[in-house]
């Protein structure tokens, strides 16, 4: 692949890079081709809700639907939207109003669902986007599009681009960390793919490092039984001594780079377990993040870990919470998902805010597409399902230079089509890069003769959502 090493000049550059990682005073050493300007966000925490949470129950208030219960969605609204194979056999498309109530919150009066009582406390910090849209209608292509700018695998993920463009802030930690949690309730958890945090055609050092709280937070981090810290240190000294002899003989700069990588590995062995060990967090923190937070690997525990990573300068922290794919039994399923996520999400926002970190941390909450206003399967007032819907969905962002207490975009009365300020997933990515101080059209990498970028040939920075 292009531009990647083992060829001496670039190795030397990498070698310099690895030396310089610790030094924020020399950011020019990370020079990627991207045009940079003063960022408002130093890092991103992306709370990815995998499976596509329903905008109708959570964020896109449609009071008028109550009177439309079980009436057919007018053809004029559906207007040729393709259907997934799961509802293409349905003879009717009966409107399912949300079973949950909405209420206004904060000074800004943002309408939010009763399912999000904790998040709602931060309404004045949130920028709610009700006009997101995508082309993809199935989970895998849609999540891949959201994360890599393309529906089919093979391209770098957002975090990998950021890692390539900006490098790491902390010498002892990777620039891009991904954490995954499964739903606590019995719901259909769509699978995820490594490509969603992979580096595509970028060198593999930019890929997201999977991390979890608990005993073995990073793959292969723990020394084998019988090898304690002293033994490991002495072994590494031997390896380094022998590698230096080799360097004296062969003068290959790649050898020096290897010595440095082994040192960084050793430092990670010290810093990462300390970082991932949540047992030292005080009891009030566990109370704040809710009952699931004491379970390693839960979304709530990952939120605590996300704050700790942010404190230590990890640039791109991505949580994936699975289980939002409610084709049936939506009300009970979404309740359970909100039980998993609402309180910890709010706790994370609150903690970032109190520590003054929300100012330069961009938090993004959302899934890969929306859900249909009509019911999939049997419809009652209390129970129904919703199919995939690419034409509109809602996400929210907070901090890092985003406009607080603001609702962007609007959908029609059925939350089916966007009537104002549409924002494509490419626009979301362009805007998030902008907040990091990167012009999305210039963060490129030459592959197969073409200068690729995260937003492909699309994407507009949405000025209206900037503070």
């Amino acid at each position: 692949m292009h531009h990647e090493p083992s060829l001496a000049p670039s190795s030397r550059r990498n070698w310099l890079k690895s030396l310089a990682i610790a030094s924020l005073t020399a950011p020019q050493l990370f020079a990627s081709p991207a045009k940079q300007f003063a960022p408002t966000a130093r890092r991103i925490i992306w709370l990815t809700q995998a499976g596509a949470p329903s905008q109708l129950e959570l964020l896109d208030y449609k009071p008028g639907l109550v009177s439309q219960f079980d009436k057919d969605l007018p053809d004029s609204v559906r207007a040729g939207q393709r259907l997934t194979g799961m509802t293409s056999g349905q003879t009717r498309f009966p409107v399912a109003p949300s079973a949950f109530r909405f209420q206004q919150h904060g000074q800004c009066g943002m309408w939010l669902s009763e399912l999000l009582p904790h998040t709602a406390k931060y309404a004045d910090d949130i920028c709610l986007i009700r006009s997101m849209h995508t082309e993809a209608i199935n989970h895998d292509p849609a999540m891949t599009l959201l994360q890599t700018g393309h529906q089919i695998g093979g391209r770098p993920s957002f975090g990998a681009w950021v890692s390539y463009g900006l490098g790491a802030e902390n010498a002892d930690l990777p620039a891009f960390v991904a954490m995954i949690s499964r739903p606590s309730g019995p719901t259909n958890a769509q699978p995820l793919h490594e490509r969603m945090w992979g580096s595509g055609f970028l060198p593999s050092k930019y890929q997201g490092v999977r991390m979890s709280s608990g005993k073995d937070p990073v793959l292969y981090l723990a020394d084998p039984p019988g090898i304690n810290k002293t033994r490991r240190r002495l072994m590494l000294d031997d390896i380094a001594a022998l590698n230096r002899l080799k360097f004296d003989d062969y003068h290959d700069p790649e050898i020096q780079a290897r010595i440095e990588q082994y040192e960084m590995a050793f430092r990670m062995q010290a810093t990462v377990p300390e970082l991932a060990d949540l047992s030292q967090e005080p009891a009030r923190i566990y109370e704040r993040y809710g009952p699931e937070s004491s379970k390693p690997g839960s979304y709530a525990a990952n939120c605590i870990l996300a704050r700790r990573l942010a404190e230590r300068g990890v640039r791109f922290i991505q949580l994936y919470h699975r289980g939002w794919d409610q084709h049936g039994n939506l009300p009970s399923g979404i309740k359970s998902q909100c039980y998993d996520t609402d309180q910890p999400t709010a706790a994370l926002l609150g903690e970032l805010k109190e520590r003054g970190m929300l100012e330069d941390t961009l938090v993004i909450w959302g899934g890969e597409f929306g859900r249909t206003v009509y019911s999939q399967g049997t419809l009652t007032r209390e129970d129904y399902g919703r199919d995939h819907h690419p034409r509109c969905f809602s996400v929210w962002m907070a901090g890092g230079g985003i406009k607080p207490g603001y609702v962007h975009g609007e959908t029609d009365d059925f939350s089916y089509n966007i009537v104002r300020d549409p924002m494509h997933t490419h626009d979301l990515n362009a805007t998030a890069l902008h907040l990091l101080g990167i012009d999305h059209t210039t963060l490129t990498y030459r592959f197969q003769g073409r200068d690729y970028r995260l937003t492909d040939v699309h994407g507009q920075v949405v000025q209206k959502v900037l503070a």
Partner: protein
Amino acid sequence: MPSIQLKPCLMLLCVAMSVVGANADEPLRFNRDIRPILSDNCFACHGPDESNRQAELRLDQAGDWDLNGLIQRILVEDEAERMPPSTSQKQLTDAQKILLQRWVAAGAEYEPHWSFVPPLKAETGPAVGLGLSHSSSAAIDQFIRAELQKHALKPSPRASPATLVRRVALDLTGLPPTLDEQQRFASEEAYETMVDYYLASPTYGEHMAVAWLDAARYADTNGYQVDRDRELWPWRDWVVRAFNENMPFDQFTIEQLAGDLLPNPTLDQRIATGFHRNHMMNEEGGIIAEEFLAEYTADRVETTATVWLGQTFNCARCHDHKYDPFTQRDFYAMKAYFHNVPERGVGDYSAHIRQNSPPFLKLSAPEVEAKLNDLRSQIKSINEQLAALTTLTTDPTQNATSDALDETATAERAKLNEQLTELNKQVAAAETEIPTTLIMEELSEARPTYILLRGAYDKPGEQVTADTPAVLPKPAVELPRNRLGLAQWLVSRDNPLTARVTVNRFWQQLFGAGLVRSSEDFGAQGDLPSHPELLDWLAVSFQESGWNVKQLIRQLVMSETYRQSSRHASDPSQESDPSNRWLARAPRHRLAAEVIRDQALAASGLLVNRLGGPTVKPYHPPGLYEQVVNQRDNPQATYQQGQGEDLHRRSLYTYWKRSVPHPAMMLFDAPFREVCSMRRSRSNTPLQALNLLNDPTYVEAARCLAQRMIVDGGETTESRVEHGFQLLLARRPEPAELKILTAAVERCRQDFANDAESATQLLTVGATQLDATLEPVELAAFTALASTLLNLDETLSKE
């Protein structure tokens, strides 16, 4: 050129020279000096793509263009007027501007793009005076030495026989040389014998297959969403066999692209067509079949174009290519070759993985067949009994007793039907025990193929028929207009690309980088060949040899260029060719993911070196799957680690799940195998260190290597250390190295003697039985030492 510009020009000319090597007094060459500038900066708006062409200016070919106007536009001060425009994010350097000026002043001569011109075999002249040994490889050395001379560089001396044994063994088989091999090939005279020995080893085919599996995007799962298993390992084994039997590359091509269309195809020829069933396959509920059928066929077009033609056809899927002269029509005309497979766009999620995506081939499984025959004959006999019962109860002559008979018969019938159900179940179960492999077949009537507007599956435009790209030489008229004709055209002597792309890929495998570094892109945006005459000489020789792969590899490995030392100059900052483009030394670089693991298994004696068969599941970090896979309806929701031999097979047999590929493979730069990949990056990261230090794979290998040191390495610490060193690195340690290593053993021995429990713990890692006759403290000390050896830069590198 206006004289007032002369002064700054002179200065800038020096820059230009150092950048592109075009001397001010040397005539410019369009392909070398001009096309790269125009392609990168201008073609996107003034190139082959008609729909986006601005100002009706087309700079990729000669025409009646106002080129002086062009020069004005690139030199003009006013930014709003200047080309390329600032919105393009492109900027010409001063050196580039001067080259363009010179080119226009000299008459703006165009050349056809270099890789579309048929390769010619240049005269190589006599190999005298160079001290070159091997005649068939001397040509390679002559081309390389000529360039070295031009750049005032000197070749490096030959590497030592010990270095070469390890280099050749790793390059040709992906395994380290055994002690016996090291001894046999310890002299310069034995080199040629050694090369032939490794070329004849069955492990050669396994190693060569890996790069081809990357190109073919081979994996064991479907890739999308739930990512269930698929069965294609019989195709993988076919590839290994083909390399081992030295199948000519033209035949290798034809059988994989169109084996089913050959007259009376053999079983093997049909298995070979699995090449183009390797693409990802979506089984997600609710997908639209047409949409994914369009993806699969596009993938076949793009993969074929990359692997054989070195062209980036993906750029012509939605519009004409921006840089190379391929139209969107070319893309869909190619698609028409691959669009006639009796396949479904959606996998059948409810079917057994062996039967979920026809067309597939059932392989022979005599035991299962026997079982099935037995079951079928039982079914037959029950059916006969049922028929007899029916005859009996409807026989009018038996009226008198019919009531009683009826009752007995009903009971009997029920019993038989029950047996029948059970037997049918057994038949269905037995049928899934027969291995299958995905293949290509051809519909008797071709599906219509349309140009898809903007590449969208539901926006068909004009209908097209199967055809090769218009800019390339036409296929011979007698060739059929189907996949077979396409394959034969790819390997015809008139095709300017296939042989070049192929020899370049093999060169890349041995030298770490291709003569064309962008081995996947021989187009306008790709790199130019460093040694164009050599590339062409190799390409034509390859064709003349009957596409003889082993002969080509032999030729490369026998060259003096390959046999050089890989030592860098003592002061790397003084090196004039740090990227080693001119090959004044042999390449030194990190080994591939598979080779690193296989080497550890081989040196420690753990490797189970058996060819082929179904995929295996070695050690894998627990919990990794469970986090991401769908638990509810996926039988592969948990990684079911294999046992015994499965833990220690070569890495090319490791289960490759696309959504969660083996993490160690990923850490060492293996591709995801979702799309075609022609080369891997070689990164150097802390996570690699953690993997090699702590993965049970390597801790177990260290213990077993330690065991070999103690059991076979004599009585002294030194001799044991030397033995381990030799097993892994194929050389004796230098005194300074030996000193560090023996001191380490002594330190660990003492340390573990004081902490016997830690010693015992270290020895528990891995499923391999512990040799209970060995003293735990001694074994633990050598295990720590072996781990050190497994982590040396030299161990991880080919030198």
